């Protein structure tokens, strides 16, 4: 299963945690190829990743998780990988779950690792929680199947999803998580979920602070609405 699989790690200034994440991935999945997309880091992220034996693609400037992931999907498509798993560089995701997230691709195009399940330690509160519930409801309705954690960055993509995301992967805030799922569902791809463990951040600061959380709902709704209203053809200007 994991022979033509690629673990893609988008990383922006994660020199403290990147090597550890790569080592853990290799321990759990010795056969997968590991790609680090260095999203314009100004620290030693790229060098640390190279030292750990990962393939490194360095973007000339910071383009956001969406742009970094599209680069990964382009790479996967051109190199003929059959599966791509996204893992965060800050050590929040447990590589022990890779088996389940990858394995789920046998009957789905996309498998999202959900942090909300009975055994989970993960908790969010306040406006952010309401927003996540609303997003989950909207996407689950579109999908005709439950997606309880649409903002999870721990997810895998099969060949059909790789081909789609290599061309069309949103770069806006929340586009890389919520928006990409909406696009996939609209194109008729099968999206499933599987429970995963969520660790608290090893190093670095969370990418969304309290102020962002308050704006979360509006922006997230906009992301879904924009996808819903978007015409179904591939964006012209965005294609090479």
């Amino acid at each position, binding site marked *: 299963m994991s022979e033509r699989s690629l673990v893609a790690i988008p990383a922006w200034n994660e020199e403290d945690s990147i090597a550890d994440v790569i080592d853990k991935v290799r321990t759990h999945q010795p056969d997968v190829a590991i790609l680090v997309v260095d999203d314009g880091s100004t620290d030693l992220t790229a060098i640390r990743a190279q030292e750990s034996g990962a393939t490194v693609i360095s973007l000339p400037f910071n*383009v956001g998780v969406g742009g970094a992931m599209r680069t990964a999907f382009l790479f996967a498509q051109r190199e003929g990988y059959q599966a791509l798993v996204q893992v965060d560089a800050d050590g929040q995701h447990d590589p022990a779950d890779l088996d389940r997230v990858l394995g789920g691709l046998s009957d789905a195009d996309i498998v999202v690792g959900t942090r909300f399940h009975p055994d989970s330690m993960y908790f969010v509160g306040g406006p952010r929680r309401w927003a996540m519930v609303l997003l989950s409801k909207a996407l689950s309705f579109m999908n005709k199947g439950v997606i309880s954690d649409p903002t999870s960055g721990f997810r895998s993509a099969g060949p059909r999803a790789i081909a789609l995301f290599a061309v069309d992967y949103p770069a806006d805030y929340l586009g890389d998580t919520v928006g990409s799922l909406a696009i996939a569902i609209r194109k008729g791809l099968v999206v499933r979920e599987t429970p995963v463990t969520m660790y608290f951040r090893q190093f670095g600061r969370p990418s969304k602070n309290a102020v962002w959380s308050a704006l979360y709902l509006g922006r997230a709704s906009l992301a879904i609405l924009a996808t819903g209203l978007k015409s179904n053809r591939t964006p012209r200007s965005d294609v090479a």
Partner: protein
Amino acid sequence: MTPNLLAGATAVITFVFVFYLLRRGVLREKYAVLWLFFSGTALFFAIFPGALVWLSATIGVAAPVNLLFFTTVFLLVLVSVQLSYELSRHEMRIRRLAEEVALLQQQIDDLRDRDEHE
């Protein structure tokens, strides 16, 4: 007569400035044409204020100056939207290029590595 002189002078300066930018090749034709047209129209009404009065009366706008302001604001909004559109397109294209450059760089490094091992 002074307001008309002011309007006329502004129009002429804009016209000459845009033309200068166009000749130097700094401004692309598709944008230059628009601004030349704007300043040309403004110059026309500065020279013949009667035309504006006549036009307002024909359309049914009580104060000619309102017609002027309305049209100007409307056209400027159109231009802003067009510029936002162009900007979005360029951001997308630059991002795309950055992705391609990064992928190419990785391929070059890969080939170089292979070369050294041989």
